[in-house]
């Protein structure tokens, strides 16, 4: 199965978007969710996921709380903060701008 690396710079956007949709998730769920929604095309490296989450915690975009999984395991759940929601808007518009630009370049005959 062909699995693609996540384009640089979009990991924050993906995490923010995922959390915005489902409210609260732990790290594994976030990785799973991105993978499934992308139909297994996007593979989140754990080596990138946790450092990214740490940095987002420091930036104040997400908040983390310890909770319990459905199987009664202790897990750290992440949730968007107000700053995180604002950041999502910023990252989205930035992403769209870039993608739009790329498309314009590609579509120019």
């Amino acid at each position, binding site marked *: 199965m062909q699995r693609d690396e996540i384009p640089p710079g979009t990991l924050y956007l993906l995490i923010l978007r995922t959390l915005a949709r489902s409210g609260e998730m732990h*790290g594994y769920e976030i990785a799973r969710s991105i993978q499934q929604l992308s139909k297994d095309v996007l593979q989140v490296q*754990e080596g990138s996921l946790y*450092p990214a989450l740490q940095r987002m915690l*420091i930036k*104040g975009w997400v908040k983390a709380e310890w909770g319990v999984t459905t199987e009664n395991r202790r897990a*750290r759940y992440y949730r968007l903060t107000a700053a995180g929601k604002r950041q999502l808007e910023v990252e989205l518009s930035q992403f769209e701008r870039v993608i739009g630009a790329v498309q314009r370049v590609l579509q120019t005959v």
Partner: protein
Amino acid sequence: MPSILERIKEFGRSLRILVRREKFARELEEEMRLHKEMKERELIAAGVTKEEAPFTASRQFGNTTYLRERGREIWGWTWLEEFWQDARFSLRVFAKNPGFSGTVVLMLALGIGANTAIFSVVNAVLLRPLPYKDADKLVTVWGCDRPKGFDTDLVSNPDFRDWKSQNHVFENIAASTDAMYTMTGAGEPAAIIAYQFSPEFFDVMGVVPKLGRTFLPDETEPGRNHVLILSDHLWRERFGGDRSVVGRSVKLDGDPYTVVGVMPPSFQYPSTTELWTPLTISPQSANDRGLRYLRVMARMRPGVTMEQARKEMNVIAARLKSAYPDTNKDQDVNLVGLRQLTTGDIRTALLILLCTVSLVLLIACANVANLLLSRAVTRRKEIAVRVALGASRMRVIRQLLTESVLLGLAGGALGVVLAYLSADALVALFPPTIANLSIPHIEHIPMDAGVLGLALLASLLTGAAFGLVPALEASRMSPNQSLKEGGRSETSSSRGRQVRNALVVSEVALSLILLIAAGLMIKSFRYLIGGDMGFQPNGVLSLRVLLPEYRYKTESQQRAFGNELVERTRALPGVEWVGTVTFLPLSGWWGTRQVSPGRGTADAQTPTAIWSSVTPDYFRALGIPLLEGRSFNEQDNTGNMPVVILSAKLARQLWPNEDPIGKTVNVEGLKEPRNVAGVVGEIRDFGPAGEQRPEVYLPFAQVPSALICVVIRTAAEPATLAAAAQHAVWSVDKEQAMSFVMSMDKLAAESLAPQRASMILIAIFAGLALVLATLGIYGVISYSARQRTREIGIRIALGADSWGVLRLVMAEGLVLTIAGSAIGLIGALWLTRYLSSLLYGVRPSDPLTFVTVAWILSTVALLASYVPARRAMRADPVAALRHE
């Protein structure tokens, strides 16, 4: 862009992580463990066997240790944690080698301590803001008569008035003049040095009294001007710091004056003054442009530079020149900043000292760098192991730099302590009693934030400077190579040796420069001490008496006092000669008069001479030789012909090719022409370092003065006569005050205080440099001898005699010394000219000093390499070959 507030919050969050980082690390680990387990389950569900699943999961997950560390890096505190690790490790290293660390810290402490001490003096004298509001706007304004060679001349009242009304560059300008009073009614009668200030003087300087007020505008008028302001010093000494002193009446010269204010201790201007009275311009001086007696201070308008002010003032001066050619023909204006005025005599010396100590610090640095380099070789294995275990080159360098910076800081801390302890000795080198030099009064040398900051900066920079080369050197090698060599780490790279040799050569060169500077200073100081001032200060006691006008109204009263005092003093046991003089040489007090030949009037070419009225035995008492004609005698009184004695220099100026004896001169301020009775030798009024100025002497009996300085030549120790001399004064007039009862020797010594201080300090620092350089040579040669133990063993085994070995090892030291000395000599030739303003009677390139110093340094350096060479020579060849 995140706002400042967000940044701060962000920093707060990472700070929280730092504080509780163990907890955060645990949590991150737990989180990742969960992730891995879930992955395993997912894999099993996808058909991977139970046994295989953990491995596959791990493979996909990657290196957990690496991940954990990435997590930590994101917290942003890695550098701090690593620094802390490095610091703890360094301390362990130091503790294991106390001898090594102690040596390094001591060397650095000496270097940094010397720098801190000298900088604290520079800071106290040159850098700390003067205690006046916007002190950089304050300038002293002087007359300037280039043909006569006066660049800071006093100012006449009409000139001052015109400056004041015509200038646009000064916010305010004020005048003052010096005065001396006899104070009675507060303790013993005392001669008080005072200044008369125009009321706006205090405003110009921007000071307010700590008690009472300053002068009112109308207090310059006669009848209202009997008010005074006390200095803090006089207030404490004479009035016991009584806060109710304002309003009290004190007698100055017999007149009652009211104390209206007390100045704070920070206001001590001019530095010798004890109190201030209002400046009253007398009708005679009000319009006399030739009577120059005012000292002028001005505050420049905001935005006006010194250059602009100087330009405009000289435009005004040019106007006055053409309007009043009789008096102002050559009168320009000179501006001197307040700081420059008060530190003139000491500034250059301090800056040179500052350069000297930084050279000492450089030498100390080179020494320590060398020590670290030799040690880095023994630490090769340790570093190789670290590199093999994955430490990056940066990381190794950082570790080594942490060590050296810590050493630097320890040295700096000890250095600050040393500097603090030496502060008192430094103050003692600049005695505050000196009245004849412009040295600022330093009561104490503060260790303020600036000084401590500089010490810290010096420590950090030194640490980095001496640590960088060894750290780069150590991190350069390949771990493979080092580990292969095993314990046999003795083959030092030729590169390492080059670096070490270069360091030693520069140490030798720098210390040679310092030693030559010290040699020149010492030679110059010996010249000054032995220097002929034109009189013999040893065995002479002096004291100064100012006869107050209110009790000695007439010349005959002054004359009677002087004669009586000479008689009484001559009767004291042990006294050989007694004379009086108006302005005592070395006292810093002097007066000038123009002396013109024949009956002509004074013009611009007329020489200006320092004048004094002297009693007949004055020349004998002070030991000034009579060159021609006769000295004054008892017959030179009012009943006989007016006479004068000239110094040889003045005589030559007046009559270059004629015999002056019997010729006539006119002395400014005296009506009758005077006959030249004799010519005496010239003297240096301002000490051995000062110049010879033309002098004119008048007989005291014909031209008495209110200021009488008594010089007593005695066979005994002059100080033992002090009390008796004081009583002699009181036996003539029990209410007469006197001051400066001291031996001429002491005065002469004090006039050399700046030269003595810079000589002593430069000599100390050069000595320090010599010790450091010697240690450096010793270290390098013994290290190199140890490296060559095997080679030497082989040589001895093959039949080399011990002299051959000795020569072999010492040759290395000799080459380094010669190279260093050569560079040092060239450097000294180039640098010592900056010393020339501090040197007297010796040229900056004095060959004898250069040769002597180079010889001393070479001898010491050879001795330093002899010791290790001897050790090598005595080596047992068998032991040497087994060595390693």
